[in-house]
């Protein structure tokens, strides 16, 4: 290295030091995502973080902390410095179910977090049947279930997720009895439906799409109109508006984070989501882009979420005490 280059490098290093006093953000931001890497929630946060890195002109790094249904990640952010460099990216319902089941437990939405932004109804949950089966609509299912209570088996997701709870809501709304078979998630529910071990399956619309396209499975109903499968009617359209746990993704900062920092983050999220390329990217992967950043909207969203899950017992939400 020449002396000149060395001096320049040194000068750059020195000039970097006063950056600390510059306005937010001036160093990388850690986005703690409470889902496993590679899944649908994680993927959306990663695509968004990439775009936010450009609008904020600093790196936004995704760190996955899915342990204990997200409770450990949520606790970590709740206890982090209130400077906007550690934020939580999560399914709102994931934290809300935990709070509803155990209000005194760790990391409470209203006591420990400041909502920054939400992605309203980011993805759809779909009720599937086999393409060669008699179940073409919710009505068909209800009719048979009334005749033969408990005989129809529905493959559902892990306890406490929409994949399980929405079937519970359907049972209550239609006053029918279906047998819920708890499986590990969309891939397993679809595999069991393809193999004929269950007659119905709950899955994410993105996971179901290729199997509907290949002609093996049929979409019976969705909780919210799906971006990738717009032709599948909602439960509401088929007479059961109660069957909807509309899932939202949220960005949360620790409570007490300065308002200006929260605004910078929220603006960046809004601006990123207006980027045509990202919008296209998200839509082609089946995500619904409907951001909410106004404080009043967010507070109501959190309120509604508590109301939504209050209908269920702690054991149904997967947070039963020992």
């Amino acid at each position: 290295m020449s002396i000149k280059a060395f001096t320049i490098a040194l000068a750059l290093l020195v000039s970097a030091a006063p950056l600390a006093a510059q306005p937010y953000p001036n160093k990388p931001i850690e986005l703690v995502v409470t889902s496993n890497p590679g899944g649908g929630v994680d993927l959306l946060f990663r695509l968004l973080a990439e775009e936010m890195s450009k609008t904020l002109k600093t790196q936004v790094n995704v760190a996955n902390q899915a342990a204990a249904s997200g409770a450990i990640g949520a606790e970590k952010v709740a206890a982090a410095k209130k400077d906007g460099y550690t934020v939580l990216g999560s399914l709102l319902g994931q934290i809300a179910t935990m709070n509803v089941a155990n209000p005194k437990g760790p990391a409470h939405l209203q006591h420990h977090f400041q909502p920054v932004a939400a992605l309203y109804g980011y993805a759809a949950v779909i009720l599937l049947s086999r393409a060669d089966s008699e179940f073409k609509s919710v009505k068909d299912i209800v009719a048979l279930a009334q005749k033969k209570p408990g005989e129809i088996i529905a493959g559902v997701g892990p306890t406490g997720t929409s994949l399980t709870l929405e079937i519970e809501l359907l049972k209550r709304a239609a006053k029918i009895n279906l047998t819920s078979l708890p499986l590990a998630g969309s891939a397993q529910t679809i595999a069991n439906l393809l193999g004929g071990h269950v007659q119905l399956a709950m899955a994410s619309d993105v996971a179901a799409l290729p199997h509907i396209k290949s002609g093996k499975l049929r979409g019976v109903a969705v909780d919210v109109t799906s971006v990738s499968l717009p032709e599948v009617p909602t439960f509401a359209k088929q007479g059961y508006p109660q069957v909807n746990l509309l899932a939202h993704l949220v960005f949360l900062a620790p409570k007490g984070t300065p308002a200006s920092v929260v605004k910078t983050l929220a603006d960046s999220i809004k601006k990123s989501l207006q980027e045509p390329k990202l919008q296209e990217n998200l839509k082609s992967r089946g995500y619904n882009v409907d951001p909410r950043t106004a404080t009043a909207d967010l507070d109501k969203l959190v309120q509604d979420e508590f109301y939504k899950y209050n209908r269920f017992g702690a054991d149904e939400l997967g947070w039963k005490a020992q």
Partner: protein
Amino acid sequence: MDTLNLLLQGVLTAASPENLFYGFAGVLLGTLVGVLPGLGPAGAIALLLPLALHAPPLAYMIMLFGITYGAQYGGSTTSILVNIPGEASSVITCLDGYAMARQGRAGPALGIAAFGSFIGGMIALVGLAFLAPALAEFGLHFGPPEYAALMLFGLTALVYLAHGPMDKALLMALVGALLASVGLDPVSGAPRFTFNFLVLRDGIGLTPVVIGLFGVSEVLLNLDAKAGEVFQDKVRGLLPSAQDWKESAAPIARGSLLGFLIGAIPGLNVVIATFASYALEKKLSKHPERFGQGAIAGVAGPETANNAASCSGWIPLLSLGLPTGSVTSLIFGALMMHGLAPGPLFIQNSPQLFWGILGSMVLGNAMLLILNLPLIGLWIKVLRLPYFYLFPLIILFSIIGGYTVSGNIGDVVIVILFGLIGYGMRKFAYEPAPLVLGLVIGPLLETAIRRSLIMSHGSAMIFLNRPIAALFVALALLMLASPLLLRRRLGREIVDKLEES
């Protein structure tokens, strides 16, 4: 013929400089995470996910796949050298691999592990190319009752095939199954034995337990060694001898087949393939008493089986788009990031990607063999380190390994705790391997049985009135009854032997 052509095309695609570079980076990284206990392919792929948005799709996928099978090569290294499995799928390699290292035969053990992995990987790859769609369809026939029956058969087979103190092995398998029940109930979601510790909600992880039981306890057991003593200074041979090859050929062939079949059934752990192969080799061997004392067949079979199983494990994902474990889910996510959702039409719609990945596996396995053989000389030097350098290093890597699993300090506590438990177990001659098997199979068996009974509203007939399930139950019963039927013949054999002597 058509398939061979397509595979050849794939190899040519994968041989482009860019793809070759990414492939090499992948297998190198895979070997590294395989060698390091704790950090596995899932962790490495998760770290590389952000790159997905910048790298070309095929090259990127070639790299990620390279990590997964590279890890199977690397996993055996620490098992053989220092008795810590680099991956859970190399647990069983500790038994004979480490015994071989103590006899100064670490070189042949490492060599046969590399050759076995290569052969197993290539055979499974050919199977993958020709049979993927058909096997995927077959896999769908396995619902909860079929899994339950298969697990029952598997457990019976392993117990029946095992020699040695059966009571202690069974006891350890049960302890493993009991430990596996810690965490959220897989069916109802209720927490069990978590004592309100958040870290225990996800259960006791396989990796921290394995690191503790094998690695930490090994160090504790050796604490009475004299200062300055080295692990092994006489090293006999770097590569497997002709005799070694003769003893390993059949186990490698059987391991390939067994690994391929077990891997193709969605949801079965690679660990199960290695245990099955070990048990099979021990049963078929003319000298079963040498197993555990450094029998090379006990390294060759399982090390072949794990690579074959990890290769055929791609079948459900690639031909149906159904991820079956944490690594396949990550690869699924990576494909999604490129907008390439795998599904039933994936092979049809993205032939270049599918065959390119398969082609890269041919090249990657060859690269791994070339990479691993010269490394043997280097690894063996590690054994010349005096105890007082080597042991703190083992403890250090064990603790780091426990932490990297999920970034929780709770896992480090589990590593240390199980190090102490493992020490006690080995002092009283309880083998840790059956405990690991219980930890793996316990939850699979439990969920399968409970899900089956939900489907049948509590009737156990569900295991008998479905053909595949009934077949496995029948086989399990037959195996249990066979000692009774064979007793007379065995009795005569013993009498004959006594008369001879």
